[in-house]
């Protein structure tokens, strides 16, 4: 791709990633969540693949490291679920309610949105987001590498 496209892609990339984090972190308050935010984050990486070519992106982010990243997301999800019945009562039990981290119980009805609420949901959203970024990005990367021709 032309230098114009490459420069713009490099400029926009951090903003898309920040927006993806925003969507993931506010998953329990606004529309969005782990999958949607993850898809946005993966699309940022796809943009880089389009602008710079798959081989150049692969130098920075290998499929193996992306798949490890994805596995960590899955692991966090399952471990949070298991803590639910080891420390509290049942699988995926929301054991963070009332705790300082994410434990605030919001008032019923319309409210401006309290980020520090939702119990384990934000953690699960982050886990899903990691999984989706890793998974989708590695799928597209592998496909782009398989396509062969670049530039």
């Amino acid at each position, binding site marked *: 791709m032309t230098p114009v496209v490459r420069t713009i892609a490099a400029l926009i990339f951090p903003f898309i990633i920040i927006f993806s984090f925003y969507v993931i972190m506010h998953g329990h308050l606004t529309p969005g969540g782990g999958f949607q935010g993850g898809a946005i984050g993966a699309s940022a990486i796809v943009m880089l693949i389009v602008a710079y070519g798959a081989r150049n992106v692969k130098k920075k982010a290998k499929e193996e490291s992306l798949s490890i990243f994805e596995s960590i997301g*899955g692991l966090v999800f399952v471990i949070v679920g298991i803590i639910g*019945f080891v420390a509290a*009562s049942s699988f*995926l*039990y929301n054991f963070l309610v009332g705790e300082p981290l994410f434990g605030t119980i919001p008032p019923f009805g319309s409210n401006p949105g309290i980020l520090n609420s939702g119990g384990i949901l934000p953690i699960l959203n982050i886990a899903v987001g990691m999984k989706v970024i890793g998974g989708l990005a590695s799928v597209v990367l592998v496909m782009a590498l398989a396509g062969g021709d670049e530039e």
Partner: protein
Amino acid sequence: MNTDWLLQHSPALIIALPLLAAFLMPVVDRISRKARNVFAIIVLIVEEILVLFLAYDVFGGNPHIYTMGAANPLTTVPAQAAVPIRIVLEVDAMGIFMAMISATVCLAAGIYSLAFIEEEKGKGKYYTLLLLILVGMLGMELTGDMFNLFVFLEVLTIACTALIAYRSNTGDAVEGAFKFLIISSIAALFVLFAIALLYAQYDLLNMAALASAIQYSNLDKIALVLLVAAFAMKCGSVPMHFWTPDAYSVAPASITAILVAASQASLYALFRVCFSLYGVTLNLSTIGGALIIFGLLSMFVGVTMALPQKDIKRLMAYHAISQTGYMLLGVGVGLYLLAKPEFSTYGIKAMEGGIFHIINHAMYKGLLFLTSGAIFYRLKTRNLNEMGGLGHSMKWTAIFFIIGALAIAGIPPFNGFASKLLIYEAAYKVSPILSIIAMLVSILTLASFVKVFHSAFMGPKIYDVEEVPKSMLAGMAVLTFVIILFGLFPGWVVGNIVHPAAQALADQAAYIQAVIGG
């Protein structure tokens, strides 16, 4: 960490453990080859122990309920609501019966894979996907929620497709996987559409709550047709059987053995929908009749298509279709007779036959596929015409093959005989012709396997090969052990394992009671 605590949480743990292990696998894979193998086998063994541990309690007469995320896993209906809104796992005798099959076949296939895929690439991913298949099967079998069933069905589909295409350096494997994926995803969309139809009317997803609310409107009947068609497609019954030989023959042999168990998970979902969701109040003779026709067609088409095959795994795959026909026939006859009160004892007997045949088939067909994999491992061919004289050098494989072949043909000391006899007896009550066809198919099966045995193992020594590695023999031995055990004590097995499972399936009221009654 006492046993009561473990028992209470084991339904969730059974699903969560392989999931956790699957996500850990890429990390463990980085450490060393040996660590990965040991880790995979330990997880599969722990899983088997957990399932048997839970099974022991469930067959003792306590169906288990587990509500995800609830303050008390036993309260399925929250205090503020009138119906179950969380995901509920319901483990009754039938569910845990199927879970035993899945865990055992996966354990055998896992041990077998240690040597079998040694020369292939991507072994870490292989075990990840194998564990994900296990998650999908166990999830389908233990869940009590329609949508959860759909999700686990899709997990199973994706993991199976990826493993069918495992030998992607050959075009055949990818082609088989593509066919499997198309059929599976259409089936899954049917299931989703049926779930939507049910949800639209009753605002419910929990199977037990749906079963108690269902009105048998026309939309419900459409949903039933969609569900039956989808699961019949997925379990490889005629007329949607054509993916079975393609997918079974190209997958690695250890995966084919698991695929047999995976199609049976779909078969289980079919039975669960017919019995527990729609129940005995619907006009059962019609569905029973439909299942009988599906079963007869599958039996006959499967075995006649198997006879001329040259590819050993394709031949076995057609036999798998024919054996699925037996299960459909058994349970279909059961449904048909249960609708007539005077025959209800025979109805239960037919269902026992059909259900007993499920576990028998998973064991002997798994064993046969593993032996075919052993032949492939040494000769690198699946073509029967290129084989011969293997009995001289691969004695153990030959013995395992004979045991599997005799079991599938229903020869008395092995387990296939016990379940087929139950089916013959009960089918005779519907029509003697059914029993005659079933026996005929059995004879044709024997003929076909005699042919395979003759061309693969008999004759002069052609190839100078050794016996397969010990871990492959160990994997086959696990399944052989179960076959012989069930063949020697069929009465005990039917009385203590199969009968409770059949009873749990037939007794819709108890199923509903377990979730929303108590």
